[in-house]
């Protein structure tokens, strides 16, 4: 995609070097995932759980691509940062509102890279004894994986690069881009 095409997305796209997945490609894949999940979970009333904030775009589109009754809940956890590292370990800053014991849980995630965060969340959810716990991820960065995570549904594989858009951020920016693109190098090298 050339500069002119990127300009159609406005000021927010100025820092983008290249589009990796167009809005149409993303919607197509999300629709396929929604259909697959609907088939597999028919009659089970699954609870879809997401971790704020990046997943909200994917979650909203995935839910609308599904054709079975589902419930929805979110958690939020503290992420590692220079400020939080002195305070010890990761913690849940917003817990689920719906009990999950005995339920079929589908954990929905926008991106998995090292697996560190997801490993923590899955351990936490498993301890609450759901009937089943599966993972659906839209973007996977397998090259950066440290902790093995079993993924039941996967959208796309991403290269080990700085990508943003469709929920993926860099310092809280670019989440609202409708596509996924590579950031220009100067953007992530400087604050």
């Amino acid at each position, binding site marked *: 995609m050339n500069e002119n095409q990127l300009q159609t997305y406005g000021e927010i796209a100025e820092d983008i070097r290249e589009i990796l997945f167009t809005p149409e490609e993303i919607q197509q894949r999300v629709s396929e995932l929604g259909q697959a999940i609907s088939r597999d979970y028919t009659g089970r009333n699954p609870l879809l759980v997401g971790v704020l904030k990046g997943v909200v775009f994917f979650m909203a589109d995935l839910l609308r691509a599904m054709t079975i009754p589902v419930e929805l809940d979110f958690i939020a956890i503290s*992420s*590692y*940062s*220079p400020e*939080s*590292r002195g305070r*010890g*370990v*990761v913690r849940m800053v917003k817990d689920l509102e719906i009990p999950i014991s005995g339920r079929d849980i589908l954990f929905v995630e926008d991106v998995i*890279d*090292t697996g*560190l*965060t997801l*490993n*923590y969340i899955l*351990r936490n959810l498993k301890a609450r004894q759901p009937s089943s716990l599966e993972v659906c991820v839209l973007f996977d960065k397998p*090259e*950066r994986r*440290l*902790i*093995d995570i079993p993924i039941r549904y996967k959208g796309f594989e991403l290269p*080990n690069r*700085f990508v943003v858009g469709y929920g993926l951020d860099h*310092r809280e920016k670019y989440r609202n881009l409708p596509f996924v693109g590579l950031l220009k190098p100067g953007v*992530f*090298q400087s*604050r």
Partner: protein
Amino acid sequence: MSLNNNNRPQFAHPSEEAFARILDYYGIEWQYEPRTFALEWDENHNVIEGFTPDFYLPQQDLYVELTMLRPELSTHKNRKLRRIRELYPEINIKLFKRRELHSLMVKYGLDLESERLENSSPQDDTH
């Protein structure tokens, strides 16, 4: 392995310490340089070349080697990793490369560590 005053290992490189802190934060158990793998022996069966991965993650049964080397200078380390996989096929080992480390630092907003890594000598590697 020597320990400092806080009962933490004396890390050979600041990036290793930053990596250990991230593992701690997410509740991942780790050991620092717990085992050396012999790679070459002389005719008297003395070890003449070994390799000590930086971290072992017991819950994952995974060794992790961090490298600060730029890809074009990693030939020697890559050869050692190939050799370790040949000789010890039962172990899981992952090479966490300079670019991956840098991405991790940027992701967690560790500007100082990321800058330090970016400015570190490409040969500033301990193994």
